[in-house]
């Protein structure tokens, strides 16, 4: 459709190379900075040449950032959020596409609306709930007068407490709900021919069996795509982990730690070399995940049976 002429090809390549430079230059800058000494990294103009201090800087960053614990925390957070999102999204899309109940469209739109309410927007109420996950229930009891009744009858004052601050549950749960994932699955489920569900029905499989044994294997590539995106998303979370973890030593994530290591303007010679080394460490896991998953994407795209 598009005509191939030498000039057009040259322009396309120029644009692509330009784009590549824009993407790669900062990465390369971080890498070279991580290989230099403090003096070299602060020299002006910045030198893009490689130094020989990479291992020293990485070691220093690892030490200072306590990345053994922090990376593990980040990994637990990212894996938990990914797993939760993939499961919840699949189940809610299954419900919306395959079951015909009265409130179906309402649920669909409620999920849709949450697209416009990301965590950053509802962060204060979410924090309130995380501080006491049973607070809404308590409110219901108070308003309906049940807690007052219990207090009168038994003399016990009802005060429900379930604190999620400084816990993995608190880190993961508020990030799990996902409209994007639900839509991804919904679109996929709608391309699955109805006859497949009917054939499963004729074969005697119930809804759950159909979901697990037929729908899930079929949506494998979808699932992996979603998992990849969500892993990177969860890995890069900053605001919520910052709020919900006050005990940074135990529950802090790698991203928070990285922020701590960015030199501030008041403290002597800024050691950007160590900060960049830390950045390299923190960048690595998502890069590995994307690189590994890419193979599956391609495989999923080639096998177009349905």
């Amino acid at each position, binding site marked *: 459709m598009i005509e191939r002429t030498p000039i057009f090809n040259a322009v396309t390549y120029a644009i692509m190379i330009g784009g590549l430079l824009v993407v790669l230059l900062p990465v390369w800058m971080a890498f070279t900075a991580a290989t230099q000494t403090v003096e070299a990294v602060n020299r002006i103009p910045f030198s893009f040449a490689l130094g020989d201090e990479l291992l020293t800087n990485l070691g220093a960053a690892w030490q200072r950032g306590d990345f053994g614990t922090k990376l593990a925390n980040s990994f637990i957070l990212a894996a938990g959020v990914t797993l939760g999102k993939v499961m919840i999204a699949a189940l809610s899309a299954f419900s919306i596409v395959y079951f015909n109940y009265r409130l179906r469209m309402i649920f669909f739109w409620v999920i849709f609306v949450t697209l416009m309410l990301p965590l950053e927007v509802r962060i204060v109420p979410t924090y309130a709930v995380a501080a006491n996950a049973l607070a809404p229930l308590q409110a219901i009891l108070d308003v309906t007068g049940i807690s007052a009744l219990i207090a009168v009858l038994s003399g016990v004052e009802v005060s429900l407490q379930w604190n999620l601050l400084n816990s993995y549950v608190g880190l993961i749960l508020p990030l799990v709900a996902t409209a994007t994932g639900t839509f991804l699955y919904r679109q996929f489920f709608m391309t699955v*021919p109805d*006859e*497949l569900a*009917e*054939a*499963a*029905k*004729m*074969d*005697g*499989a119930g809804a759950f*069996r159909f979901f697990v044994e*037929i729908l899930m*294997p*079929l949506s494998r590539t979808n699932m992996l795509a979603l998992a990849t995106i969500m892993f990177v998303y969860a890995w890069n979370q900053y605001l919520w982990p910052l709020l919900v973890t006050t005990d940074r030593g135990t529950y802090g994530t790698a991203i928070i730690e990285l922020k701590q290591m960015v030199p501030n303007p008041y403290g002597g010679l800024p050691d950007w070399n160590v900060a960049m080394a830390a950045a390299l460490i923190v960048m690595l896991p998502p890069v590995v995940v994307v690189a590994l998953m890419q193979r599956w994407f391609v495989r999923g795209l080639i*096998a177009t*049976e*349905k």
Partner: protein
Amino acid sequence: MSSISIRNVRKAYGKTQVLHGVDLEFADGAFVVILGPSGCGKSTLLRMIAGLEEITAGEIRIGDKVVNRLEPRERGCAMVFQNYALYPHMSVAGNIGYALKVAGVPKAERERRVAEVARVVGLEDYLSRRPGELSGGQRQRVAMGRAIVREPKVFLFDEPLSNLDAKLRVQMRAEIRRLHKRLAATSVFVTHDQVEAMTLADTLVVMNGGRVEQVGSPAEVYHRPRTRFVGAFIGAPAMNFIDGAMTPDGFNFDGRRIAVELPLARAHAGRPVALGVRPEQVELVAADSPGALPATVDFVEELGAGRVVYADIDGLPFAVALSEETDLAPGERVGLKLLPQSLHFFDGETGLRLGLAESVETSRAAVAAA
């Protein structure tokens, strides 16, 4: 016993009526074909038997059990879908054996039965392949294997051959027939292809607009269509129709008269009537032969085994099927001789065949003669 009995069954989606009270009885072991144009409700009826559609009103029995409220798997039906609906991520063996797996049949027995079924449908060498690696005909066989393996009381086929090419279709038709003989389960086969319907059916059900138009053997339906719709729908090229009126001495149209058996003419005198004649039951004669309708040849279609002459009687199109060679050229004048025993008359208003009650005997004779 797995006869199927459908009593006054209706189906409505909201306010839209799809089936308007269907009554049918299928004998145990019969091969029933439901034939009709798209949208006539034939697939809906099949899916109601299967349990995939709710029954709005009426009653369906399989054997002597009312199945209205039963889940599909409790009805003992197996279904072959139009697009096969094979599980793409499972091997052929997995597809065929899935129902058994769900039913909790032990692995050893499952494998034995899958192997046996694979032999019946000729897929022994393909058991480990995925559906995506099979040809259309092979997929069709997997779908049939999947139905057979459960040893169902009733087989339901939803236009299973319409995705195959013409040659394979003929071959699979024969295989379905052979399979039916061997398994002797009651089979209901839905199609819009009249050749499939005529060749496969013990009992042919013709449906239109959510109603049953006729039930009978294929020969009966062909030779004695109960309504004008059935006459027009069955047979290729389609039946010729001439609209006119009945008088006590014959059928009149356009100032012409065609002689009719007198009792029939008298019984329906004064009614608007449509005359139907099958193209293969008309003789071509010289234009000036006595009693023949004069017509002009429009064009001739060569079919190899036969040929169809499209002519018109003063603007009224009329097809004639010939088995012998012809050198008729467009524009030539010919005479059409209608054989009295092969005329069909339908009421102009209701579309019902005239003389449904009184002329059974004469038409049986006509069937024998043809």
